[in-house]
């Protein structure tokens, strides 16, 4: 009988870049168009990050490639003001990344406490 080694259920995700993470976070609440994304990300990052148009659309294109976001037809938007929303896969990837951050931050605080003791 052939034995197949059980593999741990590790997700095959790479850490997301900051612009991608912020875009996913912004779209998690509601669909937004390009400029609204820039403004929301600025607020979300407490004015630390302001994406340029090139950075924003480079990231949006990669997210469209991956199927993590989709273009969304809104009645009041024209072709030059297209809205984007998260797909179920995009939401799942965001949750995975936030879980990773939670684990990392837990480990970081534990190390800090060790250093203080």
């Amino acid at each position, binding site marked *: 009988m052939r034995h*197949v080694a*059980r*593999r741990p*259920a590790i*997700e*095959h995700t790479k850490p997301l870049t900051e612009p991608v993470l912020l875009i996913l976070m912004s779209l998690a609440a509601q669909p937004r*168009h*390009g*400029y609204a994304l*820039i403004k929301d990300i600025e607020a979300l990052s407490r004015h630390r990050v302001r994406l*340029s*148009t*090139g*950075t*924003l*659309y*480079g990231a*949006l*294109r*990669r997210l*469209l*490639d*991956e*199927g993590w976001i*989709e*273009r969304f037809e809104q009645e009041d938007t024209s*072709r*030059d*003001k*297209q809205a984007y929303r998260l797909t*179920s*896969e995009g939401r*799942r990837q965001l949750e995975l990344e936030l879980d990773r951050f939670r684990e990392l931050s837990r480990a970081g605080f534990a190390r800090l406490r060790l250093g203080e003791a």
Partner: protein
Amino acid sequence: MGAVFRVLLYLYPQRHRELLGAEMQAVFEEGAREHRLLGPFQYLRFVLLELGGLVLHAAIAQFAHATHRGYLENQVRGTSAPPQDLPDDVIEAQNRVAVSVNQLLFAISHHQFNQARFYKNEERKARENLRQMREKYGIGDPRPLP
């Protein structure tokens, strides 16, 4: 300055420019309007960052275009019509199917069967969406999708 931005958009691959160029131009102009009110220094800083970012990301997009067939290049096998002949909705729907299939195959090949079930479901929804899009535009299905 909008004209300079429009010219620099030509550094992007044609497909990227066709689909996202108008949006990018609109976003730049909205930002320029806002920064013009903040004074000449802020406006100049904004313009330099925007134009520099545009050139950099155009180079990245050209590299990606040369090495990778993604969303905008219509990666679905079995599509006889070239991407520019199809409505954007259909191209998007086709690529959603391709992405789901790739993810499904990846999950199966890595023994991640829970994820495979998830992607199978996503693939089913993506195919149904593609069928509806083709029906909407009266496009036949020339060859079966993978």
